[in-house]
């Protein structure tokens, strides 16, 4: 059962990483224009700084 000492923190950490990433996408306005973002990938312009 000693393995739990590693496994539980690891699983929490991984889950927490996912949550943190989701919050980052939310904060950087990535859900404001889902339709536009899906199509922009088709345009040839290189957009290194999406607004």
């Amino acid at each position, binding site marked *: 059962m000693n393995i739990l000492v590693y496994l539980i923190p690891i699983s929490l950490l991984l*889950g927490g990483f996912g949550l943190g990433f989701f919050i980052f996408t939310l904060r950087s306005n990535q*859900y*404001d224009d889902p339709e*536009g973002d899906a*199509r922009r990938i088709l345009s040839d*312009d290189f957009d290194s700084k999406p607004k």
Partner: protein
Amino acid sequence: MTTALHVSTSACPACAAAPNVPPAETDTNASAQIMLSLPTIHCAACIAKIERALNARPDVTSARINLTRKRAHISAGPETTAQDLQQFVQELGYEAHELDQSALNATQTDRAGRALLMRLAVAGFASMNVMLLSVSVWSGAEDATRDLFHWISAAITLPAIAFCGQPFFRNAWAALSQKRLNMDVPITLAILLAVGTSLWETALSGEHAYFDAALTLTFFLLAGRYLDHRTRAIARSAAEELTALEVPRAKRLNPDGIEEEVSVAVLCVDDLILVQPGGRMPVDGNITTGLSEIDRSLLTGETCPVPAAPGQAVSAGEVNLSGPLTIQATAVGTETSLHRMADLVALAESGRSRYTSLADGAARLYAPGVHILSALAFAGWYLWTFDMRTALNIAAAVLIITCPCALGLAVPAVTTAASGRLFRRGMLIKHETALERLAQVDTVVFDKTGTLTEGMPELTNLDGVGRSDLSAALALAQGSAHPLARSLTQAVRGVGISPLELKAVTEVPGCGVQGEFEGQELRLGRAEWVGANGANQTSVFLQRGKEKPVPFLFSDNLRPGAKEAVAALRDAGMDVHLISGDTAVPVANIAEQLGITSWQAEASPTDKAIHIQEMTDAGARVLMVGDGLNDTAALAAAHASISPASALDAARVASDIVLLGGDLSPIAAACVTARAATKRIRENFRIATLYNIIAVPLAVAGLATPLIAALAMSTSSITVSLNALRLR
């Protein structure tokens, strides 16, 4: 000491080195933020083309298109106006409209939606982790391992609940502080009691902890809240966009004689305002100079234009037809007759607020029931065993199992599905209970002008007029911007008649057009001007010299889908009525065309509202469909109301549903969808109740384990959501 005061507060050396820029200067250089609505964009190529063209302009600092909202946000130099950019985009081949930014405050709703989504994400994360730990407990973890898992669960649950549960706690507190019960009170109690007893159990290394239940509950309820919020936010932003499309501007005549285009908001009483033909009166006022005709159809429903001369009073919202007018403002802003109509609306609306939504009805029945049940279980077990711990545990289990998890999803899941479906058909559901009210409707009242008809006159007696008269009328009418003249031109050109060669064609504002043919004076215009007896329908007259005037009769075109809508509504067994502010003959005509037997003409705005009130008192559930200012009170008084997107802002605000296209036929389909949605909501309530009926006896008997609670909660929530998706 003094040196310390001069040290720059900035930590960046470059900022410290650069001279301080006075803030006033940055203000004057502030770029203009312009927003355009681009309804026709649809693909990556459209985005790339418009953005590239806009960004290539030297005066545009940045341009970004949002395809979901079909808008362009542009920051440009202060000298750039929205009209320039609108024209620029239109030259690229895309329809563009300026949006009034002050009417758009979607950012605020966005922030609320984002906060809810964040809480939903945290609740999802926490509940999944705790659920994993709980699964190992249920599958047989014992002693120290079980205690460890419970403690870890507690460590995740406590902060997560404190963060995610806030919307419920706040609502519950607001209700309790007003000594009322709402759905959030049992929710809050269940969550807090579950967490409390579980902590106690864990401290005593007990077997049952409900941490997972408390979190799943929060997660499902937040999902319901988020769906609800999103549906409303979409409707609100679409409604705001309709308002923002009407940028209120007026031409003010300054005392020094210079015309200036200003926003309607800055106009004052006694300002002189120029209104061009085709323009709408921005304020109430008196005409000081100019002769014209005005179209009052949006205010009164009359289709016949009325003459306008100096000294006459005009109201905001009327449309100037033939000649330029200068008006002196007598009332501006909220004082105008347009806004005063809002008082009437507020009065009529008090009746509607008495409607109790299905969800509120369920909550009213449910909340006390849950509390009583759980208190009884607690009291019963305490009296039987005198064991506080067992009694509290059972009370918590009852609260968790009866907690309105599925109920919280039952309504939002269905309304989200139904509103999405109707939105794709061109109907915007503005009010949250509009669907439920629409489902109960058994009587439909239509307005005529602008609702059943397009508000555009059409020549009806083309065959009854001789070729030479048509040719003369065309020659006179083709230069005029008056709606009747334009309609006449179009109709006569349509049958291939060429205009007569006339001399000295002049437009006499407020009267008509005159010209000369072979020394004979020709006139085309109002009945009084040419000395004819006015017909009892919209008409103009052609007079050659002193001959008898020839009438040209007009009637209003039916809106596309009007016939289908009326027929479908009647087939669905509803009473269809027509109430209009127009005169009897055109109203009777339209009623006959559509097969409406019950109609009323020359109704004032109050008449309309009273009529609807009478029907309501007689037990009918009335759906009002109208567009004019004269309909606003009736729209608000009716059980449910629909207005077309072409309606005045005041009418759109007063109605529950906005019809986005020009076609009326979705109305009947909307009633069907609304009924189906209400049926689904009731069905969902029944499903949720069924799960409760099975699980509650187990809980009261003390047989409910956290596993049973989790199963009952998840299956009922998922069944309810799936049932909502079946909606067609």
